[in-house]
């Protein structure tokens, strides 16, 4: 990896995002709309609203970045730009971490906007600081990016890439503790949910919700998420082949 090549690549990906107004609008506005929906769905049941909103602040960035990244990377492959890049001094890790960093920047903006709205307009309250909620949301976004990069190497068309959404994201959504707290799940479901990274980011968010100071469990969970990101990026690097048939 090389700082200058990485920086150029981040700037290029952010430039592409800047030209893509509809995606920017989707990424920024969609969480706000959905959070508002949740607010009115659970009107009168504040504890459920609090929990659902907090968990969703972590899930949006994951899902959105997963989809956006897997399609962006697939385009990079199908347009031939990836093959061309691999003949230049840029390294595989510059490309993968370039995506990770660029979308982390985008996710920070998204996380700040959505979290701000949740606190000041919708009445979300957490015992712990807002900053930690945004931090965990960004870690989730980067997890989405890393898994999206990895999955895109198994898709040949954008149509197939979109199908990874239900395959990879939905099980994590169902089992991460958003709908049913993990402790209340059947044993085998709990076991599955234990190996899914999103379960840890949800747990970390709930820790921030319940404790004034960051807990050891929260840092451990965040560490697990970051380790999954690194693992997925390295696996993604292994699937990037300079030579093809």
């Amino acid at each position: 990896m090389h700082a200058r090549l990485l920086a150029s690549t981040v700037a290029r990906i952010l430039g592409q995002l800047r030209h893509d107004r509809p995606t920017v609008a989707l990424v920024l506005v969609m969480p706000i709309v959905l959070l508002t929906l949740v607010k009115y769905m659970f009107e009168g049941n504040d504890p459920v609203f609090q929990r659902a909103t907090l968990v969703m602040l972590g899930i949006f960035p994951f899902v959105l970045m997963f989809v956006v990244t897997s399609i962006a990377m697939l385009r990079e492959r199908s347009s031939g730009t990836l093959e061309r890049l691999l003949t230049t001094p840029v390294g595989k890790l510059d490309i993968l971490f370039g995506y990770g960093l660029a979308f982390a920047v985008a996710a920070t903006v998204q996380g700040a906007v959505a979290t701000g709205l949740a606190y000041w307009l919708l009445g979300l309250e957490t015992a712990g600081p807002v900053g930690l909620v945004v931090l965990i949301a960004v870690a989730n976004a980067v997890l989405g990016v890393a898994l999206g990069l990895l999955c895109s190497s198994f898709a040949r068309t954008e149509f197939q890439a979109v199908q990874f959404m239900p395959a990879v994201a939905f099980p994590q959504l169902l089992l991460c503790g958003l709908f049913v707290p993990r402790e209340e799940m059947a044993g085998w479901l709990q076991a599955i949910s234990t190996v899914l990274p999103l379960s840890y980011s949800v747990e970390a968010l709930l820790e921030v919700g319940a404790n004034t100071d960051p807990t050891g469990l929260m840092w451990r969970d965040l560490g697990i998420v970051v380790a999954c990101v690194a693992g997925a990026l390295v696996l993604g690097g292994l699937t990037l082949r300079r030579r093809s048939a």
Partner: protein
Amino acid sequence: MDAAIEIAGLVVDRGGRRVLHGLDLTAATGAVIGVLGPSGSGKTTMLRSVVGVQRVRAGTVTVLGHPAGSRPLRSRIGYMTQAPSIYGDLTVIENVRYFASLYRLGTSAVAEAIDAVGLADHAQRVTRTLSGGQHSRASLACAIVARPDLLVLDEPTVGQDPLLRDELWAYFHDLAAGGTTILVSSHVMDEANRCDELVLIREGVLLHTGTPAGLKAEAGCADLDEAFLTLVRRNEAA
């Protein structure tokens, strides 16, 4: 003069079929080398082998003294793929700037490359909105901006008008005069006349290498198209 490209016994299989059947080739530094042959003959496959993105079955490809695709080469070659490969959602200048930055080059190289392909007036346009010919010239600009020692161009002049084609070929020769080796594929014979060296391939087999004049002399005709056909027939009869 040292050889810029040395290919020995190159065998490539694609999609379960043999596409290149043991190609041998030596190309001199600072020459414009044309790779010609019918559609599907293996031109793109050969170029991909030279830039190091083609998986090869057997043989060696040595470029500027290094194995094709090895790290020291990556800052020294520029590659233009046959289908334009640039970012459709970026402007021409943003695309060229990105590729320039990968080779530690800046503003002046970017302006020069865009100028060379005649897109100075369209530099701020998003490449998705360009015409087919403009799009492929933007892709060409991203290859030449590298100011590489070896420029590998896969059908760079397809879809360009005669005037532009003429200007591009003049530009290629300027680069070659400055020491750049240019490996360029084409299936237009009138372009073959402008190459220093020709490589004719057909169905993955080398048919002939030599100067355009040498090719015409060997086939005994004044026209390259005809010379090519003559060689093909002679080859089939043999």
